[in-house]
């Protein structure tokens, strides 16, 4: 069993995200063989011209979506942390959608069952949104790597400031 901080998920750097929706197109084409943002597992939010960010499943520990499902249709993979959906059990009630704080659970317009990011588990190259992102704003990381990166950039900034004349 993989521990929580060893699980990889798709992280989005809002400083780099330009809101181009390439991830949405790449995702819907990979998963549904069509260009259609309403079938994408990752969605872009442009709050205003300056704030752009794509959002997808965070692979939470003790995921609220799984807990919310009254039909036990959702389970979390012990191995990868992705949310697995039993389409036969799901009746599209939407409680998991309400439970998710990130809007990462979505109802499919045609099958009327829910779906979410599975990290393109069947594709040897990994998540296609990460592959396609022209800004390298998306990365497949563990929370531990993210914390490492944050520490390093904080220290770098601190020392650059110290080096520059007051």
């Amino acid at each position, binding site marked *: 069993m993989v521990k929580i901080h060893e699980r990889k998920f798709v992280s989005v750097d809002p400083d780099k995200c330009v809101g181009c929706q390439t991830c949405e197109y790449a995702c819907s084409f990979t998963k549904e063989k069509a260009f259609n*943002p309403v079938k994408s597992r990752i969605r872009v939010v442009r709050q205003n011209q300056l704030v752009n960010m794509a959002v997808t499943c965070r692979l939470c520990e003790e995921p609220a979506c799984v807990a919310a499902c009254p039909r036990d249709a959702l389970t979390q993979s012990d191995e990868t942390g992705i949310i697995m959906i039993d389409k036969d059990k799901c009746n599209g009630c939407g409680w998991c959608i309400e439970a998710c704080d990130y809007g990462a659970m979505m109802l499919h317009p045609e099958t009327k069952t829910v779906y979410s990011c599975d990290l393109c588990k069947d594709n040897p190259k990994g998540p296609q949104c990460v592959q396609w992102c022209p800004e390298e704003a998306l990365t497949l990381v563990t929370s531990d790597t993210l914390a490492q990166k944050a520490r390093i950039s904080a220290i770098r900034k601190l020392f650059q400031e110290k080096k520059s004349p007051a």
Partner: protein
Amino acid sequence: MLGYAGKVLYVDLSSGKTRTEKLSEETAKKYIGGIGLGMQLWLANSKAGVDAFSPENPLVLALGPVSGTMFPTGGNGHAFISKSPATGGVGEAVSHGTFGAELKRAGYDAVIMSGKSDRPVYLWIDDDSVQLLDAAQLVGKSPSETEDAIKDELGDYYVRVASIGLAGEKLSKIACILNEKTRAAGRTGLGAVMGSKNLKAIAVRGTRDIVPAQPEPFMEMVKEFHERMKGPATQKYRTLGTVENVLINNTLNCMPSNNYANARFENAEKVSGEALNERYVSKIIACSSCPMRCEHEAVVREGQYKGTMARMEYETLWAMGPYTGVDHLDAIIKAAELCTYYGLDAQSAGVTVGFVMDCHEKGILTHDDLGGIDAHFGNAEAMLKLIELMGKREGIGNILADGVKAAAEKIGKGSDKLAQHIKGLEVTGYDLRCLKTAALAFAVSFRGADHNRTSAYAVDMKGKVDRLKAEKGRGKIVKDLEDTYALIDSLIVCKNSRGAFYKELPEMAKLYGLVTGYNISPEELATAAERISTLAKLINVREGLSRKDDTLPWKVMNEPIPDDGPVKGALVTQDELDLMLDDYYQARGWTLEGVPTTDKLKELGMDEFSNIVEAKQEA
């Protein structure tokens, strides 16, 4: 039909009735999409001599076959087409963002809006459901405020909106149609056509799949173009952006300043693209499906205009800055924000301010005429006040809101010599006196003074020809560029991505084939491009424009460039213009009056329009 949605939506604003018709496969193949398809639909749905503000003048919204796909920049464009209230000829303006892709997913290639509503409404297209909803609460709101209000009302964040501001509501002939807050179908006054129909906005939500005819090879082409668009071909747009032109054009003495008094701006360094990027640009964002991303958002962080935010491009910066003599970037960004707020074409608005300042300095418009505004070149506050008055149509702004041609007609006193426009459309940031291929291209451009119908200026500026010389051969250069640009605006792909097409016609033909499944040779596509250029001309011929309208602003032909330097004394004489016009019409296979011949129409498979040119030959 693949690639195309296969459906055209008709909306009658008078009766509130809507219907759809199938898009004919033949029309689609002949006119491709975008402006080509839009102009064809406009011609088929209007009568000769229709007034631009008449309910009988349809406003057409058209998409290209590539719209809604993942093709870089191709997925996101849309075009508005109608009769231009500014020029009396064909009006068209293309914009990008996310709006076009949304409309394609809703299932339409084009929307034809005719008639006039008896109250302010907005059009709500929700896949198959089409409604006209009350817009009383939106009147007077900016396009940005309108978009937010509509999203709130419909309760859907992903609704995409194109709307007009106060300028469009008040029928300003320089009003534009904005989508996604910052993207404008800017030129030829189509915002006023929308306003004349009491149509405040078009809101769209589309949830259909878009599938290209050949998905796998299509994705390979997408991948290739993704890489190209992150490479040197588009570097300018990805780094400094189009504002890079400020210092380039200034150095080459081809940036008009102070209403065409000169061809360079003394304080260009202060308003350069470099200065803008270093001090103001806070974020660069992208349209849907674009790996190039070029939209530079400038924020004023301190001082009098603190908190101002606007998207900045060269033409906007030039018009509000060098052209009015203003050298404060803070104020220039504020001016761009005001244009976006009122829904004014920023280029035309800036040129109009330059015109007023010239009139004031020459004593044609007095302090009193201007309501006390001290409209001297370089006065930033006066520039901003004039734009506000234009947006609201108050005071002198009531006259100015229709652009320089209409304003000069009302002001008189020889002010027409200071009104720098072609066919009623204001000039842009290239001094035509010392760019003679561009001068020809601007003179013959079907929508008036315009750098967006060809890149003829680049032929001059890169030294591919002697830019100070008018000679035979320029006609063919302009014709070929016009046809390429007609194709770009019909497919629709972004003009900034043009460099990524290493082989223009073969690669565009390949793209068209992969999306639609219609195999078309580069030669056939070239014919379609020529057909689209000719169609635009046919509209102008039908609406009464002729060779005399293919001309240049007074100063370009009468006031030589004053500065010492390589272009001192440059201007374009009538003889030079005539030589180039003859050459261009011959290259096109048109008469020397600039009318396509019936033989030419037959060759292009456009016999159905023979009546337009026959009527002219009899007259």
